[in-house]
């Protein structure tokens, strides 16, 4: 089996890729960061706040892995705890109150698998985001910029438009995890990566994302300018749409329906 999919996984995980905050700083102007979920703590793995996109205020939220070893440790390598998802939800509800669009940048191997995370309801936190995001009445665009690790990524991706960087991956489970569960052999990760259909092209073919963003000049000025232009253009379309919430429902409603066989009984 081809190892092309697993190569993408390696690229998506590369520490040298731009992280969430790089996108925020280069695409928007005047970013003001807001902290905390008002319930327990501030999670450094998720950053959020308000900024201007070509003049208009937007709410921006990003999963942040960090660059230096010290920062990466502090940010828990971009694996959010429940308070991170709750902070994101708080900021999204605030965006709804003030009529601002929401833009999310996603890059995580997954929601953190820790004792405290379970004690504080990791599953409940993700579930609540999925529910509330499905009816947010402001436009939501989510961009997977690196790893899209399962429910921990989806918790910021119940959006009107979901885009992926060309080398980002989006998967229900890590290829290593899949290989070790199914074949008791994590070395079969390459086969798992190919089978899971986790590349940007796969995701588009499955109807899970709308757009693949080229990585030409990644990290350079032109790269961020291109994304800024695409966001502005798409937000103008979404802002005019009176059926936004209904269409978001339908967007997810149809996914997988074709995979279901319906026998008359």
């Amino acid at each position, binding site marked *: 089996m081809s190892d092309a999919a697993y190569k993408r996984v390696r690229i998506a995980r590369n520490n040298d890729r731009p992280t969430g905050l790089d996108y925020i700083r280069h695409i928007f102007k005047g970013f003001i960061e807001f902290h905390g979920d008002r319930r327990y703590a501030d999670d450094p793995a998720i950053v959020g706040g308000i900024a201007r996109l070509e003049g208009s205020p937007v709410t921006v939220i990003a999963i942040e892995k960090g660059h230096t070893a010290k920062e990466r440790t502090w940010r828990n390598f971009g694996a959010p705890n429940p308070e991170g998802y709750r902070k994101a939800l708080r900021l999204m509800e605030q965006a709804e109150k003030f009529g601002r669009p929401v833009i999310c940048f996603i890059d995580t191997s997954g929601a953190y698998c820790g004792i405290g995370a*379970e004690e504080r309801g990791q599953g409940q936190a993700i*579930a609540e985001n999925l529910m509330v995001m499905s009816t947010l009445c402001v436009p939501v665009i989510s961009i997977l910029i690196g790893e899209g690790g399962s*429910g921990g990524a989806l918790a910021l991706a119940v959006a009107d438009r979901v885009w992926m960087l060309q080398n980002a991956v989006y*998967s229900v489970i890590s290829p290593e995890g899949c290989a070790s569960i199914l074949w008791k052999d994590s070395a079969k990760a390459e086969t798992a990566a190919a089978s899971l259909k986790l590349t940007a092209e*796969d995701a588009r073919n499955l109807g899970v994302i709308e757009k693949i963003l080229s990585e030409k000049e990644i990290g350079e000025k032109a790269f961020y300018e291109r994304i800024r232009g695409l966001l502005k253009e798409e937000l103008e379309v979404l802002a005019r749409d009176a059926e936004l919430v209904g269409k978001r429902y339908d967007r997810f409603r149809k996914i997988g329906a074709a*995979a*279901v066989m319906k*026998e008359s009984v």
Partner: protein
Amino acid sequence: MALLNFMKPMNELEEGGRTSAPVQRDAGEPEKKCPNCHKEIPLSRLWANDLVCACGYHFRMKARQRIQMIADKDSFRELFSGMHSDNPLNFPGYREKIETVRAASGEKEAIVCGTAMIGNQRCCLFVMESYFMMGSMGSAVGEKITSLFEYAVQYRLPVVGFTVSGGARMQEGLLSLMQMAKTSAAVKRHSDAGLLYIAVLTDPTTGGVTASFAMEADIILAEPGATVGFAGARVIEQTTKKPLPEGFQTAEFVLEHGFVDSIVPRSAQKQYLADILQMHDGRAV
């Protein structure tokens, strides 16, 4: 029949098959060892007691047996029974696996949906099936849950759901992951319509099901001793390199941490559900 193989407690309990009716047994009947009190219990006694040991240990239960236990006699009408997953990603080994599981379980998919009366209260009912790939959620499970909540909105019915799941079904990749969003959106519509949803978490409720419709109910109940969590215990141990606390991720643990409303033993569930449903039917008594 293997009697002491309690590492796989499901096998001996499959006897009821699709109808899941308690089966009368011959003399010298098989027994099952309780993993909690270690006593040997005659299977007929277990069946008669809804698969609960005298010590209170709750064995896993087939979906249709549970429906028989919880729904008023002959009131269950199945919906969407023809829906099942194909192999949309052409995932290696999936078709063979699912055919084997279908033959062994008598079910087409990992969930049974329908309408029922519980204590004379009409509701939509779903019960996940642990005997079918450990209740994993693929496209068909997501489609059936979503369709059931939409049906409940259309007919203004409450939903009662019994969850049991190892999480999203990895053989359907991203399509499985997206069912978390799809079912959550359907639950939200049902909730926004002012309708009641009660979830009963049974052993085990984990992964993508915990992180979607299991944790989205108005009222969340759990069976005693059930494993309830997001990440697998082994994964957490490997990630944190710390020993897990006693009773970690049990129903009692999630109750203590504020994520379920109550733990209700099997014998009390029907009356408990009927009482809650009645309190929400809009009529004074």
